[in-house]
């Protein structure tokens, strides 16, 4: 195993260099085209295409007796494209929906392919072995000639994407608008589908028909986590794909008889899982953090508002006990105590005897939140005057989300349309307020 790894890493062996370059091309083209295929929702069609390529490989061998890659890939392309056309025919002229049509074509063509491969193995004599590598892929089987074919195909794919990047982007985003500009949506779509076919063919030998679609889908989906623009997504996806190809091939070279395709797909899946977890903004961890932050802010603001409402009832006191706050909040005393201590550490509160008082920071935020809450309640109360753009959520939830700009608008609306003085609405000593108690109480 160590020998294998060293042999691989030294790049001394020409065959290793071929295999490595081949894997890089497969992964990178898969990632490149995958971005477009996934956004165009063609990833499953890509899967059906790959499976439908198998009988073509077998038939090409049966008809010519040759195992040269160009001939086998030609057969694969013909039967793969035929499979896609059958899907289109079935969805256009019958009531069968696309997902069923894809499933039918995928399994029927794949089944025929397996039957043909079995037949070849039984009658094919000494030369029969090798075609089954098209099932799960064997990168080590790539030789110099194969690499020439793959490089040419990859060059065509990359050049086409560079030329037609703008067209693909516009087609996928808004095909109707794109065609009103004078572009042919149909031709652009056929071109894109053709490139997806070529991409599948590049990887067919090394990854295999069963899993090649994953090399289209997985890097692209992983890349989407890191990017808000198509250009970035395409680059990241290409990089993920290329890395999956190289690393997957390396790992599968460590021991004989590990098929390359599954390992590449596992590496790509690793990129996907890591992206889904740690990507900023879209990643799960970042979302959990945001949600936790929101929950914490919400409890803190409830705590602060409870303090203000107690202060309105008892204007003499500057501090309130944990139990009084607990009653006001409807929480258990232990929860108030825990939160009070935490807020003290963060500089919002300070312990006074058995209770709590607010520091400047807590006072400022509390005042703002009381204002938000009451303005919002007023707004909901008078909402009938503004039904065009209301947001119908209880003040308890919304108070945490209102920005100073929205507050300002609420004040304007209330004073302009109802003659309500916002100052009175939020007056801490509520005696002059129009404020109708509602919500939590």
């Amino acid at each position: 195993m160590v020998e294998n790894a060293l042999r691989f890493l030294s790049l001394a062996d020409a065959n290793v260099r071929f295999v490595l370059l081949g894997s890089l091309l497969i992964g990178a083209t898969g990632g490149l085209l995958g971005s477009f295929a996934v956004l165009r929702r063609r990833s499953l069609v890509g899967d059906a295409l790959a499976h439908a390529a198998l009988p073509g490989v077998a038939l090409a061998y049966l008809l010519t007796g040759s195992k040269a890659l160009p001939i086998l890939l030609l057969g694969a392309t013909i039967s793969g494209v035929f499979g896609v056309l059958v899907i289109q025919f079935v969805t256009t002229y019958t009531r069968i929906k696309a997902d069923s049509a894809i499933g039918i074509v995928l399994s029927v063509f794949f089944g025929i392919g397996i039957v043909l491969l079995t037949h070849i193995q039984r009658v094919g004599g000494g030369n029969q072995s090798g075609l089954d590598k098209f099932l799960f892929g064997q990168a080590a089987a790539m030789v110099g000639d194969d690499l020439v074919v793959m490089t040419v195909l990859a060059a065509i794919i990359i050049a086409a994407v560079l030329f037609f990047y703008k067209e693909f982007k516009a087609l996928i985003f808004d095909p109707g608008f794109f065609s009103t500009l004078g572009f042919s949506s149909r031709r652009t779509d056929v071109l894109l589908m053709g490139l997806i076919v070529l991409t599948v063919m590049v990887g067919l030998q090394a990854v295999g028909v069963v899993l090649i679609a994953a090399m289209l889908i997985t890097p692209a989906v992983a890349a989407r986590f890191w990017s808000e623009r198509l250009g970035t997504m395409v680059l990241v996806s290409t990089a993920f794909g290329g890395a999956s190809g190289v690393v997957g091939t390396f790992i599968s070279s460590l021991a004989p008889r590990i098929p390359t395709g599954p390992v590449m797909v596992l590496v790509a899946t690793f990129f996907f899982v890591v992206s889904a977890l740690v990507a900023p903004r879209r990643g799960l961890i970042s979302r959990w953090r945001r949600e936790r932050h929101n929950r914490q802010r919400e409890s803190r603001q409830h705590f602060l508002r409870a303090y203000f409402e107690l202060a309105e009832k008892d204007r003499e006191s500057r501090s309130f006990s944990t139990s009084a706050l607990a009653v006001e909040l409807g929480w258990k005393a232990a929860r108030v105590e825990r939160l009070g201590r935490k807020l003290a550490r963060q500089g919002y509160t300070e312990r006074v005897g058995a209770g709590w008082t607010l520091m400047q920071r807590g006072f400022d935020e509390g005042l703002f939140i009381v204002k938000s809450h009451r303005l919002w309640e007023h707004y909901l109360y008078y909402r009938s005057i503004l039904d065009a753009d209301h947001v119908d959520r209880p003040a308890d939830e919304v108070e945490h989300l209102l920005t100073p700009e929205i507050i300002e608008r609420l004040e304007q609306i209330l004073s302009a349309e109802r003659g309500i003085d916002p100052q009175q609405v939020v007056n801490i000593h509520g005696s002059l307020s129009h404020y109708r108690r509602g919500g939590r109480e």
Partner: protein
Amino acid sequence: MSEVPSASSAVPPIQIHDMTIAYHKKPVLWDVDLDVPEGVLVGIIGPNGAGKSTMIKAMMDLVPKASGWVKIYDRPYEQMRSAIGYVPQRESVDWDFPINALDVVLMGRYGHVGWIRRPGAEDKKIAFEALEQVGMGEFAERQISQLSGGQQQRVFLARALAQDARIYMMDEPFAGVDAATEKAIIDILIALRHQGKTILVVHHDLQTVTEYFDWVIMLNMRVVAAGPTNEVFTNENLQKTYGGRLTVLSQAAQAIADQRRGD
């Protein structure tokens, strides 16, 4: 993408002759026959399923015509695409697409740029100005899913403005937008009309028809009435357009579809 006759010519910008449209062989719009004059703001109204969107889509070859023809400044549509700007329904695209507002608006320039070439600095300038015109300049770099519905609608309008067209077709630009956006959009439409542009707007809100539009096309699977708002937007025509969903036409269309299905 050819040159356009001068605005002074008396040729109507849009002529529709005997246009019938069918979806899956079921007719949805029959025998549309009308000329739209230059420089008017036209509202297309009618109940759901009346064929409003279908009509403007058919004029731009987005759905096939079963019969009839459409001429733009007396020429076939294919020669006149660049004269028409289009605002599709907002729901027609995936707003989670990885693209920012400016790039969407830049697509309005693609027709001028042509195949393969990339939009240049001038196109980017025009696109940014269009965004500013709809009050969205500060959101140019914003990913489109982070915009509100009204802001997304404004981006679509900006994209059409960037097309720099003479005729605009808009599919429900006021659907689901806030009051401020509705006001901003109508102001822009009125400004366009002052520049002599012809604007067709699929519209739902009957309350605002007389206020917004100087021309109106009332549809219910056929043109019930079309002409200046103060002449044709009458109670009688409204009754014909909205009263009684199951018209003879829809019964006939259903019969045709049933028969074809039985074949």
